């Protein structure tokens, strides 16, 4: 659906004009497909104010990043991007605790791993085995018992998705998946 992957579409157009060394007719797709069938999150209008743009290549050479071909080179996915010898402080992950009402122990996730709200929410859904409803600015998360909330720098409990992604990951101190009536209270604007 439009609006959802706009950022990626622009990225694609850059690639069409890039000169490449390769066999003519080589099948190249710019977006790394994941295993799931491509199903745009129809109906979910999660605020995409500032999904982080895909990182471009080395700024010194100003070369557009090489298009990534699915499954090539043949390395297992966990080997991706594991080794950056010049890892500075700012490149280490942003780990926050995640609690879910009713669950006995907490989990920890690295917010840097996700490029936007949709990925984060999907990960939370699969980690805690629940579904999040549809987000809208007006009503918060509709359609499920759970709502993802977070504690920000000021100690306030906020609803996940209200602020641009970059602002979110820099201000989020911990996540809390709230349940039931408490959750509904949050969605109704101040």
């Amino acid at each position: 659906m439009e609006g959802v992957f706009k950022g990626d579409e622009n990225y694609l157009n850059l690639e069409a004009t890039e000169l490449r060394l390769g066999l003519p007719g080589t099948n190249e797709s710019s977006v790394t497909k994941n295993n799931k069938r491509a199903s745009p999150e129809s109906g979910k209008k999660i605020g995409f104010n500032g999904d982080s743009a895909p990182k471009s290549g080395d700024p010194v050479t100003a070369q557009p990043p090489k298009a990534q071909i699915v499954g090539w080179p043949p390395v297992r996915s966990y080997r991706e991007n594991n080794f950056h010898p010049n890892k500075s402080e700012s490149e280490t992950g942003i780990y926050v605790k995640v609690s879910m009402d009713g669950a006995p122990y907490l989990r920890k996730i690295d917010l840097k791993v996700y490029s936007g709200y949709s990925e984060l929410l999907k990960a939370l859904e699969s980690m805690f085995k629940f579904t999040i409803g549809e987000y809208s600015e007006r009503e918060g998360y509709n359609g499920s018992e759970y709502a993802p909330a977070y504690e920000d720098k000021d100690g306030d409990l906020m609803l996940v998705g209200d602020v641009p992604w970059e602002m979110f990951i820099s201000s989020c101190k911990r996540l809390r998946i709230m349940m039931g009536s408490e959750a509904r209270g949050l969605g109704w604007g101040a």
Partner: protein
Amino acid sequence: MDPNPKKPNIPTPDSAISNGSTHSYSLVPDEVLEKVLSLVDSHKDRNSVSLVCKNWYNAERWTRTNLFIGNCYSVSPEIVARRFPRIKSVRLKGKPRFSDFNMLPRDWGADVNPWVVMFAKVYPFLEELRLKRMTVSDESLELLAKSFPDFKALSLSSCDGFSDDGLNAIATHCMSDLFPFEESVEVAQIMVEAVADCNSEFVLRCREISVSNVKASSEEGRYSTEKSMVSFLSRFSTSWTYSKVVLLDVSFLEHEKRNLTELNIQDNGTEDIGGGWLSCFPDNFVSLQVLNFASLNSEVSFEALERLVSRCKSLRVLKVNESVNLEQLQRLIVLAPQLTELGTGSFMQELTPRQYEDLEISFRNFKDIQALSGLWEVTSLYLPVIYGACAGLTFLNLSEAALQSVEFSKLLAHCPNLLRLWVVDTVEDKGLEAVGSSCPLLEELRVFPADPYDRHHRHGVTDSGFLAVSHGCRKLHYVLYFCRRMTNAAVVTIVQNCPDFTHFRLCIMNPGQPDYITNEPMDEAFAAVAKTCTKLQRLSVSGLLTDLTFEYIGKYAKNLETLSVAFAGSSDRGMQCVLEGCPKLRKLEIRDCPFGNAALLSGLEKYERMRSLWMSACNLTMKGCMLLARKMPRLNVEVIKDEESDDSQADKVYVYRSIAGPRQDAPPFVLTL
């Protein structure tokens, strides 16, 4: 001296046939045949044995205890259950290899559940299960945990679908609870003794007990799947039980041998499944010998891990995950100096000088260590703590550690006995030169790319590094090499230095890249490999390649079993040469090559002699695949539909022989033609 000069009249095969006798050629009594066959281990030999005659087929199937199935869809659980009654260990493989690189949609299949359900019914004395590229649900793991009182070893390699809950079940039920079953066996044994003593009263009494047990079970109503297999079995009549015991040759009295000894999880995905399972091993569980959870991401309870290691005195393989830090590692290894294989956790932690020293001493105390891995985020500062353990090391796996050439060279100086080395290309050519000079016994080298998608433009390794290794390590026979440039001349020299290659997997990471000095295709390189390495079993080609490469492979690679091809070839002729020329070919995987229907259809009977064929992003159409399917009914020709591609193209094709017919569990996007 032969006391019996007259030789007995032994029936020859010819006389047996010409006499029209219904007995096949068997001058060997069945019991002897079975005894001899029980010593035959290799499944290839056993398959040959089973083809000799009906007697041998039967003797073989009764004595086979190790089952190996290279493609889970080539046969069905029912067929296996009918043929082999006495299986104790199973190795089962599922998805095609390209699923490791995200080329297979999720939910493609290879669910182990129907197999586990069958094993629970037919092989209650199963001891080992080793799975590769299969989907393993928590339900399957729970069934596994509860159904096999003798279960010893579970190995999951590149598997998915399970979570903490499933592993939880395995840990919780790691000790067998056989008491009710034992009771019935004891009654059976008493009964047999009583028969021998002609004590009919005793025999009748035993029979009454067993019969009443059977009655009790039928009164309780139908067996529900929730009851454990063990309690169900205890209701069986003792005579039935005892006969099974004799048949299966299981000794129930050896308590210690009945519990879990191995839990081995490798190359798992990156999903965080939870770490609570480790805390579920009972406090009196002491028999663990192999524990590998290095590829699981979640934090486990260190206290539980420490207690487990301290009470399992037979532990010889311990591979922890990244969540275990250096301080914790130290506490673990002082408890287990007997380890032969160690996988450390994270090496990134600030240590005091005292802690550093303690760690050094602990590594020196390993007398039997042969393999070392893990070492996440190790830096040049702390790498030296492991030096003390390196003298006897035969396998060093640094594929999680981005070492630079200087610290790597220093480390290698301590490892003269290395046979297998896995490393990341951050060590560069200079590091590989050190390999050549420090490790003369090396047989296997794998160099992984730190930056596979070229985001940071690192140098990596090149032709000169590979050359340097080949000069110093003449026994090299297995290589996996990811590089950004290569020349024909280098490869020609390399195989002259090391002609014994059995596995040659070269990946020039830029698709279709020529020799970077001559700008020629890399045909000459692989021609040299095929010609010089007569023992070659596995080959992966890359770079700019014409049909010439495949002509050479077809002509010279007579022992080739596995071939992987990507972005190569000029026409159908390439694939045809391979299909016509390589008699031992079993697995052929091809992607992004200009091979079309003509090439596909030049295989036909060949595919029945192979395990499988994978072709993706080639020039195949649905018509071509349907023709193949029609001509070869004993092959499963499967097309994986891609939403984006049009209906006439066959974008991903998987062909394999099967005696089980088309898949019953195929998802909607897999079409069996």
